[in-house]
Structures are given as C-alpha cells and as structure tokens.
C-alpha cells in the first residue's frame, strides 16, 4: 500500500530524514519508535503532504502511485489520514460541521454524491458511540478548550468517519490517561481490517500493548536503524534507546 524509498526531507534547510525505506502492506500495523528529535513526526507530516517539509530526494508511493507532488487534500482523497500530535483549535466551526465538510469534500473529489443529512447523522452517532463521545461534544467548536484526551479521541473519531486506507497515528497516546488510552485503542482495533493499514508513531511502548503491531521500526537521526517484531518494542522499553545507536 505504502512504499517509502530513500526519503530525504528537510525543514528550513535542515536535513531531518536521511534516507527512509519502509514498506507497509494492506492489513498490517507498523509501529515507528524512536527518541525525541529522531524524525518521527517529520515522517508523518511528509507522508501527509505538509508543505513545510521539503522532500529533497526519494519517493513516496501510495497504492502504486508516486504522491510526492500531490497536495495534502489530494492525498486525503486517496485515503491517507494523519491523526495529529497537536490537533489545531478552530473556534467558530463545530466538530459536526467540520466532519461533514471533510466527508463531502472527499466524496466530491472521488466523483461520488454527497452524503445525505440522514446518513451523515446515523454515521456520526454510530462512530461517536464507538469512541464513547458525548453528543454535546459534537456541537462544540473544533478542539477549542478540549482536554488532551478529548482532542485525541476527536482525531480517532474523524478517522472512524473517514475510513481511510492508511492511518498514521502521530503520538496518539500522549496526553491520554489509561482509561482514555483503552477507549482510543479499542476504537482503532475495531476500525482495523484486512484492507487498511496503520502506522503508529510513539515514543513509548505502552500504546503497543493495546494496538499490537506486526512490525516495529526504530528511527534514529532520520534513519530506520532497526526493524523487528513487536518484541522489539519490549526490548526498547527495558533497555531504552541508547543501545540501538
């Protein structure tokens, strides 16, 4: 589904990623771990198409197509979803109106009809229940005054609504207490199927107890320095990141 080939990315002229190679197939869960500043979030942003991150070299292929030149919205239309580490607060737009606009933009771009108000409402209710989200929450301004946990839950709610082929969860566990973590992980697991794929980016092993990866990659200085099974995550938890450098 996703093939990253020798990807070099820099921000403001500073090299952050120095030749990433990664292969993610449908039905797989990959975890990307690494110390702060290793380039984890840069990788997520580069795949999602953030223009602040400049691709110097290499390719990103999604479903066989090179998406390097595509705008963020075009990548979203093709089925890429990024759950933000720091979701943006936007006063003046409600969660519901935001997700409606998002869904209909995607349908329109794919040449499909907009979703009827009734279907939309039904889907919103169903997915909100999955993530144990109160209906009052949906009529609040997007992320404004949300707690860290509410923001992350709202991100996974959007993922549930959009049903992307590839989801990148950037530090989704940060700011979550254990109960919220379980709800979010449970939601993600329910959304997982053989046709989609998930990349979990995390600093800690904790989340991987609940969202169990097929592969674990360790990022250091903008390169994947080690790959392995889920056991690698446990090893990192015990020994820290130092031994891997």
């Amino acid at each position: 589904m996703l093939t990253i080939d020798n990807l070099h990315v820099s921000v403001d002229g500073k090299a952050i990623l120095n030749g990433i190679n990664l292969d993610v197939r449908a039905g797989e869960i990959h975890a990307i771990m690494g110390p702060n500043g290793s380039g984890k979030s840069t990788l997520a942003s580069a795949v999602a198409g953030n223009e602040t991150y400049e691709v110097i070299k290499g390719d990103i292929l999604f479903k066989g197509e090179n998406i390097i030149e595509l705008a963020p919205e075009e990548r979203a239309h093709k089925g890429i979803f990024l759950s933000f580490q720091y979701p943006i607060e936007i006063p003046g737009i409600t969660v519901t109106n935001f997700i409606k606009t998002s869904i209909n933009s995607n349908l329109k771009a794919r040449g499909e009809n907009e979703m009827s108000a009734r279907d939309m409402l039904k889907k919103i209710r169903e997915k909100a229940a999955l993530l144990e989200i109160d209906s009052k929450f949906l009529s609040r301004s997007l992320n404004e005054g949300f707690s860290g946990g509410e923001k992350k839950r709202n991100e996974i709610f959007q993922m549930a609504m959009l049903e992307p082929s590839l989801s990148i969860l950037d530090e989704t566990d940060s700011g979550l207490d254990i109960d919220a973590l379980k709800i979010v992980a449970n939601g993600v697991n329910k959304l997982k199927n053989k046709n989609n794929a998930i990349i979990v980016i995390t600093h800690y092993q904790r989340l991987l107890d609940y969202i169990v990866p097929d592969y674990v990659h360790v990022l250091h200085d903008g390169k994947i320095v080690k790959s392995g099974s889920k056991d690698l995550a446990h090893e990192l938890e015990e020994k820290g990141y130092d031994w891997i450098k």
Partner: protein
Amino acid sequence: MQLTEKLISSFLAFELDIDINSPVHTIRAKAIKKFEELGFPNKKLENWKYTSLNRVIKEDYTVFSKKKNVLDFEKVKDYFIDNIESHKIVFVDGFFDPFLSQTSHDGMDICIMSAALNKSKYSETIKKYFNKSANSEDSLTSLNTAFSKEGVYIHIPKNIILEKPIEVIHFATGNEAALMLQPRNLVVVEENSEVEIIESHQSLTVNPIFTNSVTEIFAEKNAKINYYKIQNDVITASLIDNTYISQKRDSNVKVHTFSFGGKLTRNNLNFYQNAQSINSTMNGVTIIDFDQLVDHHTLVHHANPNCESHQDYKGIFSGKSTGVFNGKIIVDKIAQKTNAFQQNNNILLDNNSTINSKPQLEIFADDVKCSHGCTIGQLDQDALFYLRARGIPKKEAKALLTYAFANNVLESVNIPELKYKVKKIIAKKLGVNLGFDL
C-alpha cells in the same frame, strides 16, 4: 470645492420648501453655517487621516431628488429579511414609500421624520430629543442637520417589548445621474421598553450614490435596543453613517455593523453613558475586496461609574481594500468601576490589502478595567494544513477558516432569520459553498 458650494447654495432653495418658522429651522440655519465654516473633512484632520472623501465628493450629485420612482415589491423583496414579520420603513430616492412600508401608530410611533417635524403632536418629543446628542461641531453631522427633513422616526413609550423587529431600507433607483441622500433619523425608546432595528442602504443602480446619514438614539432607563446595520451596497455607493447613542441608567444598547459592500463606508459610532449601570456593545464584521474602504470610528464616553462597554470588530480584507479601525474610549474621573473592553482582529488575504488599527484610550479614573487588543495576520498555516489533511481543498479550507474567524461575532445576533441572511452573505462573499447548513 464644487459639492461644498452646491450644498451651501442649495440651502436657500431648500428653505422655500419647508416651514422656516419652526424651532427646528433655527437648528438647521446654525448647522449650515457650521458646515460652511468647516467644509468636508480632509486627510489633514487626525480623524480622517486614513480615509479620503475625495473620490466620493468629486461627483456632481443632485442634492434633492425631484422625481420619485415606483418600486415593485417583487423586485426588491430579496433585500428584506425572509420569513419574518416586521414593521417596515422604506425610502426610495430619499422619499418615503408608503406601499413598501408597514408603519405603526398603535400605542407607539414607527413612522417618518417629516411627519414628526411637521405635526404639532410630536413637537414636544422633537424639542426634547432632536439634535440633542448629535455633535454640532462635526461637519458631516452639521451638513445632515442643515438639510434634515426626512428619515425614520421611532418612539416607543414605556413598558413595551416590541415583538416584531423594525426593518429600515433606503433604496436608490438611479433616477438621477448621481444622487446625494441625507436621511435624518430619531429613535427614542422609553423606560423598560425593548426594540430591534435592522437598517440597510441599497442602491439598485450603477450611478453614484452618496449617503450622509445621521441617527440619534435615546435609550431611557432600563431600555434595551439591538441595532443591526447591514452595509452590503453596490460598489458605486458610499455611506457615511453618523450614529449617536445616548443612554440612561440600566439601559443596554448593542450595535452590530456588518460591512460587506460599498465604495467607501465610514461609521462614526458614538456612545454616551449618561448614568450608572449602563451596558454598551459594538460588534462588527467587515469583509471587503477590490478597492473598497470601510472605516470604523467608535467613541465610548464613560461619564458615570459602574458602566461597561464591549467592542469586538473583525475584518477580512482582500484585493486592494482598506480597513480602518479607530476605537476611542474616554473614562471620566468620576467613572470609577468602569469595564471597557475593545478587540480588533484582522486578516489580510492579499499583499495589497491594508488595515489601519488604532486604539485610543483616555482614562482619568483610577479604579477601572480597560483592555484593548489588536491583531493583524494571515490565516494560520497549521490550521490550513489540518483542514487540507482532512480532504478539504485549499480554497474551501481558507474560506472555512475565514468564516470561522468571523463567525463568533454573529453569535450575538438575536434574530435567527437575520443571522441566516448575514451568514449567507458571508458565504457568498467568500465565494464558496461551505458544505453544511448555516
């Protein structure tokens, strides 16, 4: 200057048409002298530093429209608020239009200034209120006062909560090659009464229209007034709106100004707090493009203790448009425990758009809470990426963020049908379908 001379010499002709023995005429005669002395304001004056009237007053305006065009309601119904019962006061080319209007004398007066100035039963009210809060030292106000003849007259007696809002529309039809209009309005709301008023100026022609309007509003004890100004006129129409609000104890007056159109729009909005425990609110949303100019000059004079004022103005500027915000707050020495807040936030969408924002606080009391803030910026790039990453195309994402920016000012609009109308105008101005029910 041609227009200045034309106006001064027209005063003699104007006097042939009206009762020059009425007390109001003494006020008019004084006012024309004041205008003769001051003329139109120019950029050398501190209050007009950013706004030049030259491109407006250069036209050869007809000062008194002679003809009176007939307007068919079907053709202009879009300019009224949809699906709402309202009182209506409608003017066409400066003349009252009885067919489009629905006035009332049923326990209150919702009618016209010419009646109030000419009928003896109104003379007490006119004597008590006419030109009592308008600034006689201001040239444009004086010009309007000199020619005051027609406009809105609203008098709501004690203890009346008006159920239907009052819609005021001034149409211009293009019956003259260029037309100057000077409506003179008086609104008196007595003790414990409440009223909502929606005012707009709508030109139906490409011929230049120049409106110099003066509105005096008196809110007596515990009166509540919501005043909405919809300024969405065509690109060849200019408006100078001089509004003077005089408040008594426990009264609450809110003025909402939505500026989306016109060539040049200047709002001189003045609040005078004449007793304690008064609340004054000014909200504004400006969205303009091309070479349009919208200038908000607000003044709040806190002359008594324990009063509040709230100002929240948002501006979105595209093309070569120019915005001006000048918010003056005066807190007299006696006005302790004043709470005065002022906020002006702006987004410049183009490199060629301009905003001049200036808070002006003169505080002479020591136990007060006064704050002011001003921001000028572009759209937040992180927010833009967030929306685009959810599949919302760049243009729509920008529009949605801009809409969100303006949206919270609309929360204080009490009339749902009006809120819907304004949101629809905003969506149209931003050039996109927002993809959800407004």
